């Protein structure tokens, strides 16, 4: 949204394509039409989101929602919208496809009732349905806090918030966190809410098993060491009917990757992002990126990157001189560097540690779509497979509907472990259209009336 506004205000005609029903992505999720919610129940994020959504009414902006970009070919993007496949031409493209919760397998993780923190928050916040009556929140990092708040507001009882790190681990990083007072006060407020609601926080613990036959009936948590490995004998069972886990995020880089954008592996976040310059340009002329796909950094950072990308795109499309673009980019670029330091510190502190993957053995389901177990993947590697692609071809892990988004990271971890190689040395598998599955009927309903716009 931020990029669209920046470009539109520079005079460019902008078309925004969003897969969801309403713009806002994950940061500025909103409730569906028809809901009426008392103001106290809405968060500060909501106000910011509404403000930005309001700006999308700019005359230069055309907004298409429930519009899935299924591929980029040479000179255009292809969009599935209202049962049709449409070509959209533009002089510049900004990709800001966001992120999703990092999937982490543990015993019982496929049971109905085991959810991601983001999924729990979405159901509670946008639909006002309780993911469970009594829930466990488990993971690492500050994202668990707003999720807990959304759940409490939806009248969910939270049995415990289980955080893998310990407060004494945060002290060495206080330096990088300096100057981030708004973040601290936010965190303090969230924690105050938790205290008021009587939700205990357990540090240095993680979830090790979800219990239940047909759905979640309980959770087993355990103490962890500094590498997040469960300490035997420390297990404890808690009765809950849903478990939300939050271990950071993976970026939706598929569209950028299939468009030929160069990627970079981030050691601390332990995943792939799209490489970009300080002006948010990629190695492909005319393609710019913003937000979580350049690195997990939170909404404030995403907004600055969006602004930069929008200006750069407008400049590329000839709507801004280089000088004007540089002038306007100065402030957000500085802001971005400042916010990035904070984001990096968070990645170091809360980024995945080896113990997180200790359950990727034997009968653990790794590929949820095709039900492929860790032992099948291990056998494939023992037979000589060295890439994610070979494992996919051999076991079908990654060939399901989610196109590898859930299992790819874990397959990489198994490869890295069994072949004793760095995770970053395993190439990100090539992505081909469609970026997400699209019905034949939509693809064949070719709307040849193409939209030709400047950004």
């Amino acid at each position, binding site marked *: 949204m931020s990029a669209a506004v920046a470009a539109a205000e520079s005079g460019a005609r902008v078309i925004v394509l969003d897969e969801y029903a309403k713009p806002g992505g994950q940061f500025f999720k909103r409730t569906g039409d028809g809901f009426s919610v008392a103001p106290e129940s809405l968060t500060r994020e909501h106000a910011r989101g509404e403000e930005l959504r309001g700006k999308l009414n700019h005359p230069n902006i055309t907004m298409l929602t429930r519009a899935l970009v299924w591929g980029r070919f040479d000179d255009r993007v292809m969009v599935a919208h209202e049962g049709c496949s449409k070509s959209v031409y533009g002089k510049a493209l900004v990709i800001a496809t966001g992120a999703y919760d990092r999937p982490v397998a543990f015993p019982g993780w496929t049971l109905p009732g085991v959810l991601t923190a983001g999924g729990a928050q979405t159901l509670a916040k946008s639909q006002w349905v309780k993911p469970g009556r009594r829930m466990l929140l488990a993971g690492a990092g500050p994202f668990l806090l707003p999720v807990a708040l959304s759940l409490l507001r939806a009248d969910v009882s939270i049995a415990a918030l289980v955080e893998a790190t310990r407060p004494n681990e945060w002290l060495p990083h206080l330096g990088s966190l300096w100057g981030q007072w708004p973040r601290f006060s936010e965190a303090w407020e969230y924690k105050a809410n938790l205290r008021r609601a009587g939700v205990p926080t357990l540090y240095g613990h993680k979830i090790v098993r979800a219990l239940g036959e047909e759905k979640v009936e309980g959770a087993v948590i355990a103490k962890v060491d500094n590498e997040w490995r469960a300490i035997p004998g420390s297990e404890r069972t808690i009765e809950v009917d849903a478990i939300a886990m939050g271990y950071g995020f993976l970026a939706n880089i598929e569209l950028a990757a299939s468009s030929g954008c160069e990627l970079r592996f981030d050691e601390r976040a332990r995943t792939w992002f799209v490489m970009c310059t300080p002006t948010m340009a990629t190695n492909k002329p005319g393609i710019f990126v913003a937000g979580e796909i350049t690195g997990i950094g939170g909404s404030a950072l995403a907004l600055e990157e969006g602004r930069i990308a929008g200006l750069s795109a407008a400049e590329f499309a000839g709507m801004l001189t280089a000088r004007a673009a540089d002038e306007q980019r100065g402030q957000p670029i500085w802001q971005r560097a400042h916010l990035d330091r904070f984001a990096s510190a968070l990645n170091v502190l809360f980024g995945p540690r080896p113990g997180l993957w200790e359950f990727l053995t034997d009968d653990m389901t790794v590929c949820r779509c095709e039900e492929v177990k860790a032992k099948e993947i291990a056998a494939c590697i023992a037979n000589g497979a060295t890439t994610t692609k070979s494992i996919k071809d051999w076991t079908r892990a990654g060939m*399901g509907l989610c196109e590898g988004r859930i299992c790819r990271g874990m397959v990489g971890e198994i490869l890295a472990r069994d072949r004793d190689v760095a995770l970053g040395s395993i190439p990100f598998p090539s992505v*081909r259209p469609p970026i997400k599955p699209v019905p034949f009927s939509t693809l064949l309903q070719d709307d040849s009336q193409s939209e030709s716009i400047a950004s």
Partner: protein
Amino acid sequence: MRTADICIIGGGLLGTATAYYAAKAGLKVVLVEERELASGTSGVAFGGVSLAIYSYASARVPKTYVELSKASLSLYQRAQQEIGPPLDLDAPGSIDPFYNEEDSARGLERCRGLQACGVPCEFIDYKQIKEIEPAVAPIAINAIYCPVDAHVTPMGVVWAFAKAARQMGAEILTNIRATSLISRGQRVVGVATSAGEIFASNVVCASGSGVPALAAGVGIQVPLDLARGQMFVTERIPPLLRTYVHNIKQTPSGTIVFGTTREPGVKDTTVTSVEGTHKMLKWASELIPALANVKLLRSWAGLRLLPPDGYPIIGRPEGVDGLLLAVMHRGVTLAPAVGGILTDLITDGKTALDISPYRLERFASSAVGAEAQETFYGT
């Protein structure tokens, strides 16, 4: 430095099949593949093992070619018994549909010719098509039905042959690039690779698009046209197809795989196109209407290998000793036969099947037969 009886360049269908039959015959085999097994054309092929399916324009399939295909299918069946998964030969029969009277007439002629060669097949009308394969739309007015036709997942076949060859002592080496042939006078004696030299009394070039360059290094010209082929796969759906219909099949997991475009002169053969996607989806959903609500999951593209007259290039080229070539269209169907033929040529100096039409030297003589063109490449 390594030595072997046979060094095979190329870890696709032809290379691994040859490795299997050569190892079986007791030869010392080394295979080198520059990337991973089946990372070239073999990894992107549809997987039909067909006696009856050809281009729409084909009215007559030459007898020698039919014999070659029959022998290959028979070897597949035996290999399935001997090796098992992941070779996974599936033989539900095939339907090759015709959409107009012209194509139907040619199809009928083709069918009769195949029958005369002992291929079990029938020329059927739409009513009969619908009985065998209810999902097919009436735009198919006639078809050739061949109840013995089969299909495979080409990668599975490659891995199966490689696994079995290894078990018999063959060395299958990946991520090693063959940079040139080593010759002494008029004799090829080995292969220079990125990991050292391999000396062998027989060198087989089975590296698809890489064959012409390697052969040129010893003065042998191999004419080979290349084209991009685009392939597509859907989500898993309930059982829909029993046989396979031209190039549309349902895999054991339930996905529908279909293709292929043939686009000569396309620069980037690793990317798919909107036009190719549209064309293939239109064709598939007109023929199998139930596909309309099915979701396309992935597309991919690769190199298709097209010798100018459609026939395979198999055997020892004249003028140079120690070298064998194997590069062709329809390599999925022919791979086991070719593997057997090359092994025979090495161990016995001859082979039972008539491979004279596939000599490289045929290109030097008269113009390429138009009939053969139509059979394989059609319109």
